[in-house]
């Protein structure tokens, strides 16, 4: 009788140990998944780099490629959005003699490990998206995107947008139309000067 009881108790304990181990083994992927999910959702060091944009700026836009460069002035305001996950730009001014307003949202996608941006403005009905990363020096954010041209029917032409940080109070954005060719690709430049 005692022997039988001991055998049963040992079997029961063994089952418990087995089940516990099995449960722990099953839970590890979930915890890992949750960890990865949390890492993807939580703003990190890459997001902190976006703080360089935050503030009020005067802008000077120069449009190139149509005779003399055409200059116009405006203002821009970069603010944080959603607990440091995104930054938002509100820009206004004049472009080619027309009043202009625009918005851009920029952030860092932890999962894809890329900076992403989406912009809308009063000049068009297209949402312009771009993505990219800082260069080695982390003084220039280089992003690529696609644009369409309804006049000629061209779709998805690649452009390069370079945000260059020339000190804490000056940012220069250059936009290159890569579909043009290899040279003379810069189509416009915006110089941001921080409000003092």
């Amino acid at each position, binding site marked *: 009788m005692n022997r039988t009881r001991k055998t049963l108790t040992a079997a029961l304990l063994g089952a418990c140990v087995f089940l516990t181990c099995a449960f722990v083994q099953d839970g590890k992927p979930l915890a890992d998944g949750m960890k990865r999910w949390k890492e993807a959702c939580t703003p990190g060091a890459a997001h902190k780099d976006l703080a360089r944009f935050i503030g009020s700026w005067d802008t000077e836009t120069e*449009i190139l*490629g*149509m*005779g*003399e460069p*055409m200059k116009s002035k405006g203002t821009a305001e970069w603010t944080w959005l959603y607990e440091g996950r995104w930054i938002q730009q509100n820009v206004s001014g004049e*472009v*080619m*003699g*027309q*009043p202009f*307003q625009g918005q851009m949202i920029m952030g860092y996608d932890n999962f894809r490990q890329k900076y992403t941006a989406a912009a809308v403005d*009063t*000049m*068009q009905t297209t949402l312009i998206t771009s993505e990219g990363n800082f260069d080695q020096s982390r003084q220039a954010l280089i992003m690529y995107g696609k*644009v*369409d*041209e309804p*006049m*000629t029917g*061209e779709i998805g*032409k690649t*452009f390069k947008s370079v945000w260059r940080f020339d000190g804490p109070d000056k940012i220069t954005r250059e*936009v290159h*139309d890569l*579909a*043009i*060719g290899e040279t003379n*690709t810069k*189509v*416009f430049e915006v110089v941001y000067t921080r409000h003092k």
Partner: protein
Amino acid sequence: MTELGALVGGWWGWLAPLAVQAAAFAALVLLLDRLLVRRGWPGLLHALWLLVALRFVLPPTLAAPTGLGNVPAVSVFALASPVTSIVATGQSAAPSAALLTLCALWLGGAVVAAALAVRGRLAARAAVRGAPAPAGMQRTAASCARRLGLRRCPPLVIARALPGACVHGLLRPVIALPPRVARDELEPLLLHELAHVRRRDLWCDAALSALCVVFWFHPAAWLARARLAQLRELCCDEVAVSALGPRAGAYRATLLRAAARLVGEAAPQPGFIAGPSQIVLRLRSLERGPGRHPALRAATTALVTLLLAACALPMARAASRADADAAGAARSLIASALDGSSRPGCFRLHFAAMRIAADTSPPAPIP
């Protein structure tokens, strides 16, 4: 809805800056009119007020390097006037309710104003109907017409219901005389009415009527019309007095008798019959006498009018040389892209299209 939106947006984009510009210009001319009330002469003031009427029909985009629109303080009256963006949706697909209401109000007002103008014209036409004047009067009229350099003399009628002389009819003007015209009154009356024909005042008045129909809501349009009506009487008085020469005194007597006839008249005054109070103004103007140097006056009138037209009529900002160059470059860029001879790229084409759009249409207000 898109077409209606574009139509209403275009209407507002045109009318609003035009109304603001015309008001500003009329204020300037009114100021000049008050300043020149003693030293000015009817011809000069008439020319200035004609410019006010002209401002209503010129496009609000009119620009010149000499224009006041280039002065930053004045550029408020330029194309993108603040008024444009108060209610406007501009080129948006659906016009705002406020803009639609305004458009409907304007249209309703214009219809009423047009109906009243047509009724006035018909009443005037009815009032000048009458029997042909005697041959003696016709001969005097023909002689007066020749003195004023008119190739054809309009027919004369005697209208029973008419309190004073007037001329009526655009294509075939008719001079209507009241039933009792004294012999010494006839020549001054005819010279005055023929002066209206020579100056094409009937066409001017018809154009001003049309202007007041379109801009029925605009006090400056009505003010310009009323002031021009006064001034052209003074101008015709000057012509008649000059043609009468040494018998100019008879003209004043004719005016006084006309005023006496008009006192107490309740009948409508068609065409160019002046009211009694206006005749007093005309007598005062005649008292000052004609200018000694008519050629100098004419030259001064032309110079002042030209100066004002060059400086104050163009109220939009003129394109600089760089702007003009950029517009030309934008056009050729698009043309070369469309014929396939170059590949300027999406951004440049987009900017080029914006540059051309800025020239050809008012900037779209930002909603």
